[in-house]
């Protein structure tokens, strides 16, 4: 746990200093939490002080994926209700320096989040963090709207299938109308497309939408394409952000995505079917 003094919640007008990234999708099960964990860890690996907040009150998952579930004492809702200070609730990641996790409450529901409470927490965090990653719950209701309201950047996680694409389209509409930036008349939220569970051979077989198809429908810049991989599931089960598995394609793809998020030009990888050589097949190179 870091040692700084707990700050006082800022005023409404206070300009947020940290960049707030919301990882959202509309549809459930597309990889929001996996992506939040990976992007947050990736930013911290590059030296940015980063906090990941789990907004999925009642369906807490982020702590499992980050492997810190046994260290949760206080949570986001406790901080909002002033039952605990932010420093008591923030969990410092054991593997990655500069990385902190603010878990959601498992025993409450989304109504426990209040706009003022969320703003107070974000204001306090933004004072000495560089990035705040908000892991949004599925859906378009209160929890999801709360997670994206204060965002500067949105990472829209989409699977290459029609229902996920349509839900992402819906959430993009909400990003255009129900955010602090829109209401304050500022620059709109930066939108990025993160395509997950991409399987080039199934695209070739016509079973999945291609990158081109999804880009065509959503018309927002492509942040990255994460190939479908067993490594993601394995890493989740071990409580390890997949970006730390540097030899896996998914881990590398997330690293590329973080680089692009920071403005670097990195070519997209893993979009084509790779012909596996005999040895590669024998060794199960994934």
């Amino acid at each position, binding site marked *: 746990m870091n040692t700084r003094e707990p700050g006082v919640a800022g005023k409404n007008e206070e300009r947020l200093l940290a960049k707030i990234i919301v990882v959202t999708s509309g549809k459930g099960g597309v990889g929001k939490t996996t992506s939040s964990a990976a992007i947050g860890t990736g930013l911290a690996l590059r030296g940015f002080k980063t906090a990941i907040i789990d907004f999925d009150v009642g369906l807490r998952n982020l702590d499992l994926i980050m492997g810190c579930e046994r260290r949760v004492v206080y949570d986001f809702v406790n901080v909002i209700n002033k039952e605990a200070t932010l420093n008591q609730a923030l969990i410092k990641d054991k593997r990655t320096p500069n990385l902190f996790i603010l878990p959601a409450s498992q025993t409450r529901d989304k109504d426990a989040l209040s706009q003022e409470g969320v703003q107070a927490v974000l204001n306090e965090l933004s004072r000495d963090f560089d990035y705040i990653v908000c892991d949004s719950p599925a859906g378009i209701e209160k929890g999801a709207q709360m997670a994206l309201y204060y965002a500067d950047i949105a990472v829209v996680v989409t699977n290459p299938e029609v229902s996920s694409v349509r839900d992402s*389209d819906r959430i993009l*509409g*909400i990003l255009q109308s129900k955010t602090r930036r829109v209401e304050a008349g500022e620059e709109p939220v930066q939108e990025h497309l993160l395509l997950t569970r991409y399987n080039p051979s199934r695209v070739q077989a016509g079973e999945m939408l291609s990158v081109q198809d999804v880009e065509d429908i959503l018309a927002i810049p492509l942040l990255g394409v994460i190939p479908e991989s067993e490594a993601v599931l394995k890493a989740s089960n071990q409580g390890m952000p997949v970006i730390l598995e540097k030899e896996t394609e998914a881990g590398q793809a997330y690293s590329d995505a973080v680089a692009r998020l920071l403005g670097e030009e990195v070519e997209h990888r893993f979009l084509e079917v790779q012909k596996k050589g005999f040895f590669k097949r024998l060794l199960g190179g994934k």
Partner: protein
Amino acid sequence: MNQLSFQLKGSVVTAIVLELYRYSRADFSAELEAKVRQAPMFFHQTPVVISLEKLEANAPSIDFTDLIALCRDFGLRPMAFKGAPAGLGEELQATGLVLIPAGQGGRATVPETAPAPVPAVAPEPEVVVRTVVEEKLVHRPSKIITRPIRSGQQVYAEGSDLIVMAAVSEGAEILADGHIHVYGPLRGRALAGVRGDAQARIFCQSLEAELVSVAGNFKLSDSLRELAWKAPAQVYLLDDTLHVGAL
């Protein structure tokens, strides 16, 4: 020379003219109450000129002090009598109000100088309202949208054309009282002439719509696929039939 404590200036004041035809306390009170109830704020603290020009010649004598008191009860502020018949002069003067001769500062000049929405004649406010509505029927600018219209969003151009410079996603809905122009792919629902304008048309760069409609006549995507699918097209109404033609 700014030592003067006042200056006299000529001015035109807008007032309501109450034209009295006949007077019985009960009828007058009831009728006035009904008028005031229609627009209480309009009659609140309003200066009133009581015109006696149209007063029936053989009307029984009137208690003018009582009439003024009655007007005040309803929020009106009588300030003058106008066109008093001969013989009533002294009686009216006793009420303390000003006497204005007939045909002066009356209807002939007030409607010209007064702003349009203020009726110069209280009993016919409807006429004035109609004039205001006519002014609003003038050309309305088209609504222009430059960002994509996403699934679940609805955009309505009321009383005008709608121009969309980006994509209209599946699950989005765009409506206009006039024409609709879409310069990105049209994948959602587009309804032109929603208030019944059969002349309205839909123009688009790439027709991939779920539904198109002009003045309530619609076609679904299945029938559009055979006509001008993913091509520049226009949709219009001819003899009550919806036509889809390539552009």
